[in-house]
């Protein structure tokens, strides 16, 4: 138990360091850091309608983040969640606006198509990687840009809301009877669905054969191959799961709080979810907590005037610094420093790293 707490503290240190740096920047540019912290807490937790907003942002973050956690655990750097999410919301909005179906059928069709499109989008990169070794980091990033153009197209021609244009160009709103949630309120359906998904991903990762295969492939693909696993197939599954979850998150966004797809102003949930998954050390519980935390930040910065005196780009700065530092191995670095202090190095600098010095020890 004590070890787990210590571990947690080590995990949270880079996060704290990142926040300290970001707030130092805010203070340095003439913002009152204490006021911002107060505002963030008010906007995320204590304020009027703050908690529902926090949950509103946490839901897509957790759904996308869990998918990213699955792919990173499988050793695949699938960083195309943003594109997969956008494709999912495009599918959902298309079904909701264009297909004349009874209500349950709309949900079913939209969910199936959004998941399929998200998974397919992710699998483009997956297939290219698994079959031919095309670097998935670049291809998933490129697919994000392609998906963005698909959104631009859908918001400017086929499903355009004629009253909007430019960065605010959007599709028409879906029929309000189809939506689960207005702004500033909890949506029981979405919360239940998110909980189910959390439980499902936990079962998949920790209690299923596929989960074991995914983790083994990520930890040591050669060993997995020797165990008779088809590493290729397992890797493809990781793309399918990540893409499907991101696509579903896109559909939830359309049927939930957003109600439409907007070109310019969508917060980059895909990247935030990557931060969420890494902050949560790729575990289910960690990802859920991190999603609540970053959901709170998003809610506070978008909706609270005290904070939004700080430009919304402040949030991106925080996320950037967190991503920059979150994987830092502070524990290992400090431990090594301590060791090298204890045993005086014989040949000057870099003693801790040079193999010769290690041989001497």
């Amino acid at each position, binding site marked *: 138990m004590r070890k787990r707490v210590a571990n947690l503290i080590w995990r949270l240190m880079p996060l704290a360091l990142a926040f300290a740096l970001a707030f130092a920047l805010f203070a340095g540019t003439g913002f009152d850091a204490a006021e911002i912290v107060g505002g963030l807490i008010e906007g995320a937790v204590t304020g009027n309608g703050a908690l529902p907003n926090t949950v509103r942002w946490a839901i897509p973050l957790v759904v996308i983040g869990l998918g990213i956690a699955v792919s990173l655990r499988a050793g695949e750097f699938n960083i195309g969640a943003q594109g997969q999410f956008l494709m999912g919301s495009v599918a959902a909005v298309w079904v909701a606006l264009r297909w004349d179906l009874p209500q349950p059928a709309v949900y079913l069709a939209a969910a199936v198509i959004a998941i399929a499109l998200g998974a397919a989008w992710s699998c483009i990169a997956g297939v290219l990687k698994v079959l031919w070794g095309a670097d998935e980091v670049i291809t998933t990033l490129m697919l994000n840009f392609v998906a963005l153009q698909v959104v631009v197209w859908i918001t400017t021609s086929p499903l355009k809301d004629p009253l909007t244009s430019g960065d605010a160009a959007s599709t028409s709103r879906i029929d309000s009877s189809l939506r689960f949630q207005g702004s500033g309120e909890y949506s029981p359906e979405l919360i239940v669905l998110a909980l189910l998904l959390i439980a499902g991903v936990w079962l998949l990762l920790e209690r299923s054969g596929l989960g074991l295969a995914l983790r083994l492939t990520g930890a040591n693909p050669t060993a997995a191959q020797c165990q008779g696993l088809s590493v290729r197939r397992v890797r493809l599954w990781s793309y399918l799961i990540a893409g499907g979850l991101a696509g579903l998150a896109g559909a939830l966004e359309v049927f939930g709080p957003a109600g439409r797809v907007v070109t310019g102003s969508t917060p980059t949930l895909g990247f935030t979810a990557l931060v969420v998954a890494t902050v949560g050390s790729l575990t289910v519980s960690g990802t859920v907590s991190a999603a609540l935390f970053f959901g709170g930040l998003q809610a506070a910065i978008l909706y609270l005037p005290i904070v939004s005196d700080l430009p919304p780009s402040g949030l991106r700065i925080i996320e950037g610094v967190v*991503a920059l530092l979150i994987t830092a191995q502070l524990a290992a670095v400090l431990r090594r420093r301590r060791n090298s202090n204890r045993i005086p190095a014989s040949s000057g600098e870099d003693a801790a790293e040079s193999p010769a010095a290690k041989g001497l020890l």
Partner: protein
Amino acid sequence: MEEFIASTLRSSVPLAYAGVGCLFAIRAGIFHLGIEGLMLSSAFAAVGIAHETDSVLLAVAGALVVSAALSVVYWATIDLLHADSIIAGLGLTTLSVGGAAFLLDVIFDQRGRLDSGVGLPRPIKGAQAGISSLVTDLSILGWFAPLFVLLCWLVLRRTAFGLRITAVGSYSYGARAAGIRESRIRLHAMLCTSVGSSLAGVELALGGLRAFSEDLTGGRGFIALAAALFGQLNPIGTAFAALFFGSANAIGVVTQIHSVDVLPRPFILMTPFVITILFLTLSAIATRRAARLRRERIVAES
């Protein structure tokens, strides 16, 4: 056609600088996703300084300094703190995107765009026809690009420093055993990369538009990385890859000028990204095949 060639040349200049620049990082073993961010922050620094001082020289110097400073931060997080280079690189890019937008708001009280009174000098201006129309409006950095590529080739392939970079990236233990200080080599490689990406950002900001906007780079840093991979991590190859990806970009520019309506505009704008994916895959296939052939030859000879 002339318009297309001219536009290709203009679009490939930033790709060439960033692509050849990031060779130093990739050859040192770091997949540098912060390039996009370095380009954007350099562009911002350049336009910001040019906006205030009207001096191109100061703007370029400032961009180089900002890019170098961010590179040192990136190097410190992955080399001293052992952070994951991909996540940290994306973090650097996000920090730059957020930081540029933030400072644009705080310092200049602008949203999304800042104009600069001055731009990079253009040796040949406004030629309408003939050969010189192909290079008209090409900025001074465009003219220097081949020289830069050649210089990088010399450094990477013909100097001890360049070979050390490759050694560090391709066989870390060997490099260490040969007494190379890996950490320092990586820092220097990263600084070389910062120069290339910084010049790419300056070219984007002050070469044509003379303005900064938040989506100025629009994924060009990532395309430059792809160009480096497509160019088989060779400066000359990367330069040609940049030229090729630049032509994909030029399709979008030219069709916009002539408002050709073959396809809806977003589909034309996505072509550079689609082409990048396609050719990255092709080069991956080629690399694999070359490796297999080499293996088979070794087997046959033994």
